[in-house]
């Protein structure tokens, strides 16, 4: 029997449809709201499990402890170019994700250097830096008013097979901006030194920016005005003086550093001064600096000459003698400053000979050479006098020529018998001597640290490594670098052919065969 559609039943049907539609819509909206809520919670509270055999994404207990104990937020900003060829690019972002996972105090932002200009400008204003000073391809850590920039080059161990040391560097950067006292560097003024505010070719403005990025405080110092090296000075920097330091000034420096004769201060504690000297010899002798006697007390001998060497024998011009000295490979003797430098070339420009004095029992300080000139070089004492420099064995300095020296307090001998014959510094009064005491680094050149040579591979690194060593920041956290876990398969061409055909034809054929059999059976 057919049901007649009356106007009342039509209205009822329409009403029912509307109610059903409304019910469905409300239920769907509620389910979407629940989904959004779950997603919101999910995005904030989560767990991560590293399934890789090498623990590629797992952080060490040391890092976990440091990061979990953070009291102030640390803002991490990456300024990485999207470069798929860069092997560790993804690993940097992944490991930062792990830091973020460990603590909600870590906030990670990834900025694209080419599209996020507004945000990069805001960042530069926050850091009180010019846009140019923000390095492309770096990771910036900021906490409070302290910041630390980590360039990509620091994230990779330089020697092959290029291990990833992101965790060590990042954890160190976090410590740097949250816990450590800011290291203060004073640079002397008033002796024609290079200018730390100068961004032209001879200036040290670039180095100054790099130091600020590494969370150092860089301040000028007029010794004659201050009458002492300030108490908050962690490192005194003398950069290319062309006029002599007075005896009064050198005494201030002596007092700050401590000498063999007087190693302890009024409180009976070991003096802990740090000195970095870069000499400016290319225009004449070093006697103008007035520092030779002072440096001699730390086992560092400075000569009045310019290092030159025979570079290449040109057909028309004969042998070319140049003062640009390239240092690389085994020309960096073993030292904490240079342990990571062998693959990088440092270019010195008109350096003088700076050498380490042979040790005697009465010396409290031991100096070690950290950079050497090529074997064919010599120290030319008559630059500008002769038309063309030529080695004169009577007056010039013969090879081997050293260009930089680092000096520190000698270790106490481990043999107790030796105490009877060792100098005062080695007394048991100074236990843990390797962790304290004055340090001095002297370079025979200042040009290599100037803006003009900043792009040379090893120059900036050698200066920064020296400053880290002086500031005793070379100590590693003991977090080992991670080797890239790339697993190669060794496949012969015939095997590859087998794999190829099995993959693209063998497997699908089984599917087609089974399908064909099923079809055939069903057809019957």
């Amino acid at each position, binding site marked *: 029997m057919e049901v007649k559609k009356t106007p009342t039943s039509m209205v009822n049907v329409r009403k029912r449809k509307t109610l059903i539609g409304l019910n469905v819509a409300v239920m769907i909206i509620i*389910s979407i709201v629940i989904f959004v809520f779950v997603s919101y919670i999910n995005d904030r509270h989560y767990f991560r499990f590293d399934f890789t055999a090498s623990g590629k994404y797992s952080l060490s207990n040391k890092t976990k402890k440091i990061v979990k104990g953070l009291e102030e937020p640390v803002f991490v900003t990456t300024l990485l170019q999207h470069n798929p060829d860069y092997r560790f690019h993804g690993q940097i972002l992944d490991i930062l994700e792990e830091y973020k996972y460990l603590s909600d105090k870590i906030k990670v932002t990834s900025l694209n250097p080419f599209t996020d200009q507004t945000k990069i400008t805001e960042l530069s204003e926050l850091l009180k830096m010019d846009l140019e000073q923000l390095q492309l391809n770096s990771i910036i850590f900021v906490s409070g008013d302290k910041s630390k920039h980590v360039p990509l080059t620091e994230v990779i161990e330089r020697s092959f097979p290029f291990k990833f040391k992101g965790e060590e560097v990042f954890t160190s950067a976090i410590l740097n901006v949250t816990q450590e006292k800011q290291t203060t560097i004073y640079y002397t003024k008033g002796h024609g030194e290079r200018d730390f505010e100068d961004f032209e070719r001879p200036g040290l403005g670039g180095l100054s920016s790099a130091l600020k990025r590494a969370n150092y405080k860089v301040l000028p110092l007029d010794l004659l005005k201050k009458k002492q090296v300030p108490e908050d000075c962690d490192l005194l920097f003398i950069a290319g003086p062309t006029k002599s330091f007075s005896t009064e000034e050198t005494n201030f420096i002596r007092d700050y550093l401590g000498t063999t004769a007087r190693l302890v201060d009024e409180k009976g504690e070991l003096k802990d001064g740090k000195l970095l000297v870069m000499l400016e010899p290319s225009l004449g002798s070093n006697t103008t600096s007035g520092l030779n006697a002072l440096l001699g007390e730390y086992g560092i001998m400075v000569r009045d000459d310019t290092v030159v060497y025979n570079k290449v024998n040109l057909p028309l011009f004969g042998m070319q003698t140049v003062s640009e000295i390239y240092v690389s490979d085994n020309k960096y003797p073993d030292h904490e400053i240079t342990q990571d430098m062998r693959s990088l070339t440092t270019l010195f420009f008109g350096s003088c000979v700076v050498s380490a004095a042979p040790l005697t029992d009465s010396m409290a300080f031991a100096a070690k050479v950290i950079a050497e000139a090529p074997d064919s070089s010599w120290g030319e004492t008559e630059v500008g006098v002769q038309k063309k420099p030529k080695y004169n064995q009577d007056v010039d300095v013969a090879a081997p020529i050293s260009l930089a020296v680092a000096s520190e307090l000698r270790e106490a001998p481990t043999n107790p018998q030796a105490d009877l014959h060792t100098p005062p510094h080695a007394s048991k009064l100074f236990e843990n001597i390797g962790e304290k005491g004055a340090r001095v680094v002297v370079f025979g050149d200042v040009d290599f640290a100037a803006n003009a040579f900043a792009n040379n591979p090893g120059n900036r690194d050698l200066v920064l490594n020296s400053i880290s060593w002086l500031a005793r920041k070379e100590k590693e956290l003991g977090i080992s670098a991670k080797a890239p876990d790339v697993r190669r398969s060794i496949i012969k061409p015939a095997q590859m052919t087998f*794999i190829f055909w099995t993959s*693209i034809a063998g497997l699908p054929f089984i599917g087609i065969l089974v399908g064909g059999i099923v079809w055939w059976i069903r057809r019957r």
Partner: protein
Amino acid sequence: MSNVHTIFLREIRSYFVSPIAYIVISVFLVASGFFFAGNLQFWQEASLKGSLDSIQFFLLLLTPVITMRLISEETKSGTMETLMTSPVTDFDVVFGKFLAALGLYMVMILPTWIFVLFLYIFGNPDFGPIISSYIGLTLMGGLFVSIGILISSLTRNQIVAAVIGLISLILLWVMGFLSSYGDSWYYQCLKYIGTFDHWESFTKGIVDTRDVIYYLSFTALMLFITVRVVESRKWR
């Protein structure tokens, strides 16, 4: 759950007695085999990462083909009414069909373990990322299938279901890329909704509960909406 089991068996049987399952599986295996062999030859790396990225894309293309007929065919042929009047709930129907489609999806990716065998014979693969990748593939399959079922429930035409399903999955995939253009809240939402970022962690060897819950909750949402859509049809 016995109703779900019954519907699951009915559906899975219907898949394997028709040639469509074999065609889909074979097409998928040709494509994934090509990318696996190509990657292995080019990079010589005992890893599935490169080839799984391509495999993921093919799964995205083929899953709507698996799901297109699930409900739309029943609606068109009128068997849906019969099914709805039988003593099964709407949830039983939707979930049974979902499991069957997911079952076919699993059967489709199962033969790719032969690639892992090749890597094991000729190299020393890290099984961690391989296992996490397959966990990711399974979860992602669940999401793709649930979206496919929802779209199949919205139309009577299988082809329309397949095309809309394909467009939806591609949009979901592309959302992740769009999110890289900014970091405001809506870009963050796009990033969360897009599948790409969630999938990527699995291929690296990381199992993140954010990704797991994303897939599970999104799948649950899609299935819930499908149940509501099917239910509403019954009363119309």
